[in-house]
């Protein structure tokens, strides 16, 4: 169905970003919290529009922008993620001297990029969405302008990201050469006749996958991840861990899943991705073991999680991929939010030693953080357990048993580094002077909502799973 409603959510977000950048430039208030409230208002309006178009399958621009149920569900996830990131950002911005207007404005622009990426079936539109996302992310990473680590992470992210985009766009050129169109379905049907014989197209598809692999930090294209996660401002890191990763995987799934259905499962691309998934899980959990900085540790944890998500992509199991992404949103933002809770003026606590004894000094914070860590490690009754469980079950059904065995073993290994943080919090005497300067209600609201999300998805996932199945059904 053609309808202006398909464009409305996007227009609201882009408009909101511009309004906020202009307001910040002209009003020059010291307290930037009003910008967060304004952004939240726009996010809610956008969410209402998304809800109203559920099941309607709206499209616009001759079908180039298509709001199917999957796009809507992901847009909803992104809206929640950005709202959470803005709330946990409020405390961080005031304490660490980060410019507020740019933070909210760029975050909204990045959100629009995410929504463009996931709501199109044309490679060029996906590429443009990815670039809107990337360009605003580069700026977000370097937002702490006076901090050397932050600008260094920005330049690393920028160089690696634009290098990856060049691969992606060259791959698109090759795909265009074989299919004479950049619709995902046209590319697929050009492969249908002769899959292995089309060297040009295969190289093109490979380059496109490499381009995405950089963005979602699959091994061997993960080198930038730890540095960027460590250097970027913590709320921005939380956004990187959740937003671009979810969008990248959703797009990768949209591109690749049809190929598995067509019986290309024995193809070379499948084998290469199988190895990449195994390596990603292994490297993410093994190198994570020797990290002393918690932000770096979470970077490796996000690499390992990318491996599990790739298993779901390989199994062609859309519902469990989206469930994993949903759970990962709550536990990822919750974990980074707990890090922000533990900071004071111009000082962040990100070393493992800083967390010694925190569990006794701040019992609530320690308990909440522990739940997020247990969920990341995959203990029941948290959402993290069910997410991994569904992915593994789906993969076993598709004869990926050996990959699942690697997955179970690596999640055992990575459980060690998550549990080590809990051990530090509860079984060590405090070594350093750590305290919370401002009790920020917005931050604690987000922490409790994330806690609720992780437990709800772990204990009563039924309703969400029902919606996710509807969303995943719109794929084929």
């Amino acid at each position, binding site marked *: 169905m053609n309808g202006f409603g398909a464009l409305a959510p996007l227009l609201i977000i882009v408009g909101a970003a511009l309004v906020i950048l202009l307001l910040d430039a002209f009003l020059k208030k010291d307290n930037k919290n009003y910008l967060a409230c304004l952004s939240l208002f726009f996010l809610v309006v956008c969410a209402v529009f998304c809800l109203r178009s559920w099941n309607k399958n709206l499209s616009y621009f001759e079908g180039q922008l298509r709001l199917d149920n999957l796009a809507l569900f992901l847009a909803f996830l992104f809206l929640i993620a950005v709202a959470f990131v803005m709330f946990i950002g409020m405390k961080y911005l005031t304490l660490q001297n980060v410019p507020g207007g740019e933070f909210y404005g760029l975050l909204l622009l990045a959100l629009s990029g995410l929504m463009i990426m996931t709501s199109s079936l044309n490679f060029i539109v996906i590429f443009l969405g990815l670039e809107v996302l990337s360009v605003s992310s580069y700026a977000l990473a370097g937002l702490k302008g006076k901090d050397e680590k932050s600008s260094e992470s920005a330049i690393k992210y920028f160089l690696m990201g*634009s290098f990856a985009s060049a*691969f992606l766009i060259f791959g698109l050129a090759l795909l*265009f050469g074989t299919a004479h169109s950049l619709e995902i379905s046209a590319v697929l049907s050009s492969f249908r006749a002769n899959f292995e014989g089309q060297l040009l197209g295969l190289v093109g598809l490979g380059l496109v996958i490499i381009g995405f692999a950089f963005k979602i930090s699959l091994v061997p294209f993960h080198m930038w991840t730890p540095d960027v996660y460590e250097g970027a401002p913590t709320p921005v890191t939380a956004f990187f861990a959740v937003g671009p990763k979810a969008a990248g995987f959703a797009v990768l799934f949209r591109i690749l899943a049809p190929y598995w259905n067509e019986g290309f499962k024995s193809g070379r691309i499948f084998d290469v991705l199988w190895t990449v998934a195994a390596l990603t899980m292994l490297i993410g959990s093994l190198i994570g073991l020797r990290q002393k900085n918690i932000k770096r540790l979470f970077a490796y944890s996000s690499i390992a999680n990318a491996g599990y998500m790739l298993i779901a992509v390989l199994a062609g199991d859309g519902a469990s991929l989206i469930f994993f992404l949903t759970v990962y949103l709550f536990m990822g933002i919750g974990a980074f939010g707990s890090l922000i809770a533990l900071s004071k003026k111009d000082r962040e606590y990100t070393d493992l030693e800083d967390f010694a004894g925190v569990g006794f000094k701040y019992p609530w914070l320690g308990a909440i953080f522990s739940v997020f860590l247990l969920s990341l490690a995959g203990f029941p009754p948290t959402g993290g357990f069910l997410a991994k469980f569904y992915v593994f079950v789906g993969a076993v059904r598709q004869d990926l048993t050996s990959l699942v065995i690697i997955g179970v073993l690596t999640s055992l290994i990575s459980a060690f580094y998550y549990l080590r943080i809990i051990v530090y919090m509860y079984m060590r005497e405090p070594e350093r002077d750590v305290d919370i300067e401002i009790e920020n209600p917005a931050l604690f609201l987000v922490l409790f909502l994330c806690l609720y999300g992780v437990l709800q998805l772990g204990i009563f996932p039924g309703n969400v799973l029902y919606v996710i199945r509807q969303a995943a059904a719109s794929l084929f």
Partner: protein
Amino acid sequence: MIPASYFFLLSVVLFVLGIIAFFLKRDLITQLMAVEIMLNAANLAFLALAKSSNFLDAQVIVFFIITVAAAEAAIGLAIVMLIFRQKKSIKTEDMRSMKG
């Protein structure tokens, strides 16, 4: 007239040169230029393939890519300026404040 396939070959050569330069060069501006060369190689590939297949969509796509490349160059140069102001250097070996 020069056949379109020659242009395509040229674009592949340019792309590979860009990759090599990205890994061999040790300062940020040159790496940025290497990425720009790779993007322009992709443009050339689009044009060559459009010419050989007579599908003209590719010529429009090239405009999109040029715009994207301009946006990337703008933000990239701004970040390099930021780095230079802090470190007085744009060599990659000076970007080592994080390890692990």
